């Protein structure tokens, strides 16, 4: 049941805009973090794109997945578009899963992020190292891919908290609870 006044619609629009601005600001900051320094770093853009995807509509999720993927390609020196494809696919999938089957819970987010980031690291290892059959290539999986995956999973906790904070203040509630709806009805009847 949707009950919206014009003022509420304005607020909804404003909050939505501000929320997306903040999402993209977070994406930009994550990109900067990923491009600085020489140490191995988490792929923060992966949990971030998944986190955004599970709370928003599918089109937004797909675009965010693509943007995060392109940025990942740039900072990781990969074929431009490779990670965009991977992340767009997983963002759409995550969005669908949360829309149809899963509740917005921390544990569900962590499971999805863990699986997605593992697949992303594995694909990266597969296509960029193992396929070329370098000598001792397995070491790259153990020393680089797995390490990056673990860092990514750890970083996902913080990413979730930040996104939760943004959503808490700026995520408009599309639907009213039954109690709220009844109260709103009573109030409007009283006004009459």
């Amino acid at each position: 049941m949707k009950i919206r006044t014009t003022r509420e619609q304005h607020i909804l629009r404003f909050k939505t805009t501000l929320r997306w601005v903040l999402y993209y600001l977070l994406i930009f900051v994550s990109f900067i973090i990923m491009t600085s320094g020489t140490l191995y770093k988490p792929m923060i853009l992966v949990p971030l794109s998944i986190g955004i995807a599970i709370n928003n509509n599918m089109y937004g999720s797909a675009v965010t997945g693509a943007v995060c993927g392109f940025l990942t390609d740039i900072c990781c020196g990969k074929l431009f578009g490779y990670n965009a494809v991977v992340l767009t696919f997983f963002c759409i999938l995550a969005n669908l899963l949360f829309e149809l089957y899963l509740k917005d819970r921390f544990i569900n987010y962590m499971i999805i992020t863990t699986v997605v980031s593992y697949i992303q690291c594995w694909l990266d290892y597969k296509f960029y190292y193992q396929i070329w059959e370098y000598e001792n290539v397995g070491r790259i999986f153990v020393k680089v891919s797995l390490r990056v995956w673990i860092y990514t999973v750890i970083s996902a906790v913080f990413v979730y908290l930040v996104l939760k904070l943004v959503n808490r203040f700026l995520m408009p509630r599309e639907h009213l609870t039954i109690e709220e709806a009844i109260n709103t009805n009573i109030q409007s009847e009283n006004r009459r």
Partner: protein
Amino acid sequence: MRDFLKSTRFKVMVGFLAFLVGMMVYAVTRGGYSVSGASFINTVTKPFRAASNSISRKMEHTVDKLTNADKYIEENERLKKQIGELNAQLTEYDAIKAEVEELRKFVSIKEEHEDYMLSQPCKVLGYVTNDPFKSFTIDKGSADGILVNCPVVTSEGLVGITVEVSKHVSTVRTILSPDLSVAAVASSSNADQGIIEGNVLSSENGQTKLIHVPKKNKLKRGDLMITAGNSGLFPKDYPIGTILEIGFDSNGLSVCADIQPCVDVNRLTSVIVITDFSGKKEDEENED
């Protein structure tokens, strides 16, 4: 009055005044040293005077702060600004100093190799995220005359090759990568040739590998390996690294060696790109 002048009190007072004058005269004759009485008083009163002085100073300081607060705030602001300006000048000076040192090194490359066409010194923008072979990006691109497959060097030695060039940024593949092979020769003998090619194990320690060296060779630990310049992708006789350990390839048919690059690839801040040199091949391949 006459009674007073005749009284004993007057005589005592005059006597006392005379004593004081006499004491004064004595003090004058001491040549600056205190008379014993004054010295005693000074000694006894010293701690009290010190405490009192301290209290009064604090009070004066407090009063001074209260009365001249505006003046001090203004002065403080002025000094802060001055410090800021000086710090900025110092930072600028340090940056210029570092840049001059870098340029000096690059000038030496040009002096030693007159045939080289060098790019402007390129700053390292950052390393490619999570790349085990330490590829990195530089702040110069095609707009600065850089092409794909241009050798990238420092004054110490060869760093790698440009693999992706956009207008203002280029990506450099280093000599730690197994995807880059460089023909090398020992500088001492100028005869023992091999291929410098990175591998997974060596790159973990910032080293690379010399492979495919014939069994009959005169290589020894510490030998400097330089570019052979056979196919025209890299200039001839540019330092690559020194030999650490010599062994056999896994097939046992040829000799290989661990190479410590002349350049610490993990800690680069600026490099230079050789855009042209005598003997450069027009149709470059990613193999020398």
